[in-house]
């Protein structure tokens, strides 16, 4: 009994924290984006700084009429938001917020996280296919081609991390980054992988996860100026809100994976094990928000790619670079 209760509490805590993080990122997107364009952004909702804007948006979405377009494939149309949402929140199970605060640390954590996150591809394709709208269909197919093309560099970048850490468990990868890299006198200093040889891997991972999330500069699937709203054109009301939430939850989970693989997760150089035990979640979530801020910053800075440039970047640059990164990592690991 107590096992079941503990498990439920853990799962609920992780889910709550991560979805709460997604709401914060939504608010940050509105506010940071506004300030980057010299606007004020949300201002009135909630009294101060418009902090309640995400909640107000959610309520507004719920009050809207839910439409299923004529000729749509009803069941697939209604199932698609669930599939997309499952693909993103499934990742949360293996994210360790501190050495003990983790829903379940699987041996195959990294592999599982990457596998389950690619479920969104299926959901997006379902949404595009079932809507009976040409914008949706083109958006869905673009999304599928983009997601599978960038899946490869993303996973290849993680293979290099797995070689360096010698494990696929996400906690194991974070613990491997706590091994002292060098010492000054008595003090052993541990460095995250981004500083100990995985800088190329980190760059590839971030670019590929931007593409996986269909964010600018890789937002061809929902290119507003060409395809109205891409695969979500026909969705309204709460179903649209589900896609919206899944997008930002996906941003949080991708940032969290990059944090765990490259930025040392809940570790901070020079912090003792007991301090990590207490401060772990704060450090982890701060790093996640830092990466999310980078994603938002890129969104408001860069213009959109063209479809052929996107494929070209994945196949001609990122995949060879990721393979080279694996070769370098493997050689260094054997030699030293």
């Amino acid at each position, binding site marked *: 009994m107590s096992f079941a209760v503990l498990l439920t509490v853990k799962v609920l805590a*992780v*889910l709550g924290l991560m979805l709460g993080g997604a709401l914060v990122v939504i608010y940050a997107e509105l506010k940071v984006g506004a300030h980057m364009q010299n606007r004020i952004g949300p201002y009135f909702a909630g009294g101060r700084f418009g902090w309640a804007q995400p909640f107000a948006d959610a309520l507004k979405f719920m009050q809207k009429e839910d439409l299923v377009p004529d000729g749509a494939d009803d069941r697939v149309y209604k199932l698609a938001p669930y599939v997309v949402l499952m693909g993103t929140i*499934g990742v949360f199970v293996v994210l360790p917020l501190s050495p003990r605060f983790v829903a379940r640390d699987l041996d195959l954590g990294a592999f*599982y996280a990457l596998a389950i996150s690619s479920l969104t591809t299926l959901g997006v394709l379902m949404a595009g296919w079932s809507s009976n709208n040409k914008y949706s269909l083109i958006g869905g197919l673009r999304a599928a081609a983009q997601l599978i093309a960038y899946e490869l560099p993303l996973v290849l970048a993680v293979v290099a991390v*797995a070689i360096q850490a010698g494990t696929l468990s996400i906690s194991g990868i974070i613990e491997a980054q706590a091994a002292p890299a060098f010492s000054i006198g008595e003090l052993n200093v541990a460095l995250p992988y981004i500083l100990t040889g995985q800088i190329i891997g980190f760059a590839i991972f971030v670019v590929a996860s931007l593409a996986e999330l269909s964010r600018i500069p890789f937002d061809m699937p929902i290119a507003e100026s060409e395809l109205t709203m891409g695969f979500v054109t026909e969705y309204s009301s*709460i179903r649209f809100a589900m896609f919206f939430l899944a997008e930002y939850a996906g941003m949080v989970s991708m940032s969290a994976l990059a944090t765990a693989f490259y930025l040392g997760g809940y570790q901070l150089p020079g912090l003792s094990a007991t301090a990590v035990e207490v401060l772990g979640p704060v450090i982890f979530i701060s790093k996640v928000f830092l990466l999310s801020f980078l994603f938002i910053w890129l969104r408001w800075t860069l213009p959109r790619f063209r479809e052929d440039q996107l*494929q*070209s970047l994945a196949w001609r640059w990122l995949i060879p670079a990721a*393979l080279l990164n694996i070769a370098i990592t493997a050689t260094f690991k054997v030699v030293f």
Partner: protein
Amino acid sequence: MTLADYLPIGLMMLIGIGFATGAMWVSWKIAPNVPSPEKLAPYECGIVPLQEPALRFPVKFYLVAMLFVIFDVELIFLFAWAVRFEAFGWTGIAAIGIFVALLVETLFYVWKRGALDWNVAHRDRYRRVVAEYEDEAA
């Protein structure tokens, strides 16, 4: 690792489905529902769609999918090698190196055959049109 270790995944999925279904139930309760033929028509910038959604697609999309399948298989083998890396050493690097080299050679072949060049025909036509226009202007 037993099967019970994967239980949290099922629990997370159940809670997620419950959350989504609950939100949809609330929306179903408080949202208006007065459909009309105009509302239900597929979106087409305000006009009636003249044709079914396009069913023909550039063949490049299929090519990308096929290339992906080839490299996806490579990834599975790479993971198996990466986790047991220490045990294999140079032998492992040599073995996986040959395997990856064969696949990279495939990528190179596909690259040179032009399977990765999207939209070349259109861009050629664009260049031709622009060149003709510039000739006339000169």
